[in-house]
């Protein structure tokens, strides 16, 4: 089973919730795979201080033109929807950062002058801490396309473990890539006008993808009750509420988890898992 922790607005507490849930789940169910899919700014590793096992480079396939075969017909540049291969004075030139790796240019090239080569977009780091496997994607600085790296991280989901995805913020391509195959989504928000505005967008995305989801409200008490009222009106379950507690903010700033330091919050994280009805099929 895969549980994704997402939000429209950034900085609402996705990583806090994903890492603390992973810790509770590891105690309760055994092996947990935590997949940090916020590849532009992955932070789970700051809180789950595991041993680094290995790293893998992630490449996408991009075209390379063999000029001795190329007839300068222009079919590749005419076909490319992303302007990633352009004919300059007849000669096709590849703009690596624009390439979506669809393979179209290779297919339309009649003389077969185009083959594909690897182009690095980022790294995947593997960490281990007790029963938690943390896998995080780290997009190379300057590389614009995060979805292929997110896809590569997701392929490493554990078959027999609970998987928890720490998703990127927002509502467009990277978020969709991160959550589209999840079984359940926790949408994290805060009780403010910005929090509500971005929650509504995230709910619409989750509905469009036909996902089961619930809401977690962070910093309860810092704003007003507009998010609570919205959830009630829309019949959306509120699965977790974390109060506006300065101690939590201080722990977070120092890279420490709630679970290790504020035992009074343990029960509410445990209840999240019970409420979602996590059933681990471990095949035994």
């Amino acid at each position, binding site marked *: 089973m895969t549980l994704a922790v997402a939000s429209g607005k950034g900085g609402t507490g996705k990583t806090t919730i994903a890492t603390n849930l992973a810790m509770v789940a590891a105690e309760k169910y055994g092996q947990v795979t935590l997949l940090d899919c916020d590849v*532009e*700014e992955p932070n789970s590793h700051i809180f789950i201080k595991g041993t680094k096992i290995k790293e893998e480079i992630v490449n996408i396939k991009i075209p390379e033109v063999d000029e001795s075969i190329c007839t300068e017909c222009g079919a590749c540049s005419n076909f490319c929807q992303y302007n990633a291969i352009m004919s300059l004075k007849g000669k096709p030139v590849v703009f690596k950062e624009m390439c979506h790796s669809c393979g179209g240019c290779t297919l339309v090239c009649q003389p077969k002058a185009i083959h594909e080569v690897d182009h690095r977009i980022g790294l995947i780091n593997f960490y281990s801490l007790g029963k938690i496997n943390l896998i995080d994607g780290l997009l190379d600085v300057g590389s614009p396309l995060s979805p292929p790296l997110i896809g590569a991280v997701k392929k490493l989901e554990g078959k027999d473990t609970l998987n928890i995805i720490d998703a990127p913020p927002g509502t467009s391509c990277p978020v969709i890539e991160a959550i589209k195959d999840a079984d359940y989504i926790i949408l994290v928000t805060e009780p403010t006008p910005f929090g509500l505005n971005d929650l509504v967008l995230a709910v619409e995305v989750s509905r469009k993808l036909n996902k089961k989801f619930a809401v977690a409200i962070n910093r309860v008490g810092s704003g007003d009750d507009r998010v609570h009222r919205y959830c009630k009106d829309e019949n959306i379950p509120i699965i977790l509420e974390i109060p506006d507690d300065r101690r939590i903010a201080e722990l977070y700033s120092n890279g420490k988890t709630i679970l290790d330091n504020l035992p009074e919050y343990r029960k509410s994280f445990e209840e999240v898992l019970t409420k979602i009805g996590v059933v681990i099929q471990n095949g035994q």
Partner: protein
Amino acid sequence: MDNRPREIVVISGKGGTGKTSISASLAYLSQDCIVADCDVDAADLYLLLKPISIERQDFYSGHIAEINQEKCAGCGICKDLCRFDAIKANNNAKFSVEPSSCEGCKVCVEFCPEKAIDFPERLCGEWMKSETRVGFMVHAKLGIAAENSGKLVALIRSEAKKLAQEKDKKLIIIDGPPGIGCPVIASITGATDVLVVTEPTLSGIHDLERVLSLANHFRIKPYICINKFDLNLDMSEKIESVAKELGAKVIGKIRYDKLVTKAQIEAKTIVESNIPSAQDIIDMWERLKVN
């Protein structure tokens, strides 16, 4: 050459550090700029500035594949060729496209032997020109689960520039997106300054380092604002030394102020609310103006 307007882009790496509250306050202090919301994924600036739109246009970007069920022969070539796993087998032995996975690459359209795949333009949202109490604003609403936020960002910036020229404004303030990927790159390429808003947390520092190296990559001068600096003074000091190392200037430090949320609820910018942190933003603005 340089009568192009100054373009300050507020970005952060990490989300939720206060980009929107700060952008709105800077625009209010300026009273003579064009303001643009380039965080099109989660566009919140309108909640503070209450824009009244004077022009509204659909935003089309790229195309999307649609399989005509009448013509589909069920050969499955499209599914084999699609690298985005966007084509699903239906229970009628034919195929269809999953719109949220389709990248609009046209490979399936080109190679369908039955010519059964249509390729219409994709409606991705809308963008607006508006009037606000701080001046003109350009902003957008991205469609639900739509793609191409990078292109929409580029469009908003170019419209903001046109408007600046038309209205003879020398400054554009842009509320940018979080992260370091496509929409951020589209927000900062060619801009004059970036103002990176960070917070004194380990995550904040980690993300700041990445976003500063992005700014360096594109050779744009970064300024740093430490929001809620007094929440963790040790971390704030670390940020100052990281900034120094990476050649960036800390131009503002804003105190932690619980009343910021109250201002947001009242749909006011921080500087209009006359709360303690307002003075810190005014000080930062004075420094930004002359730098």
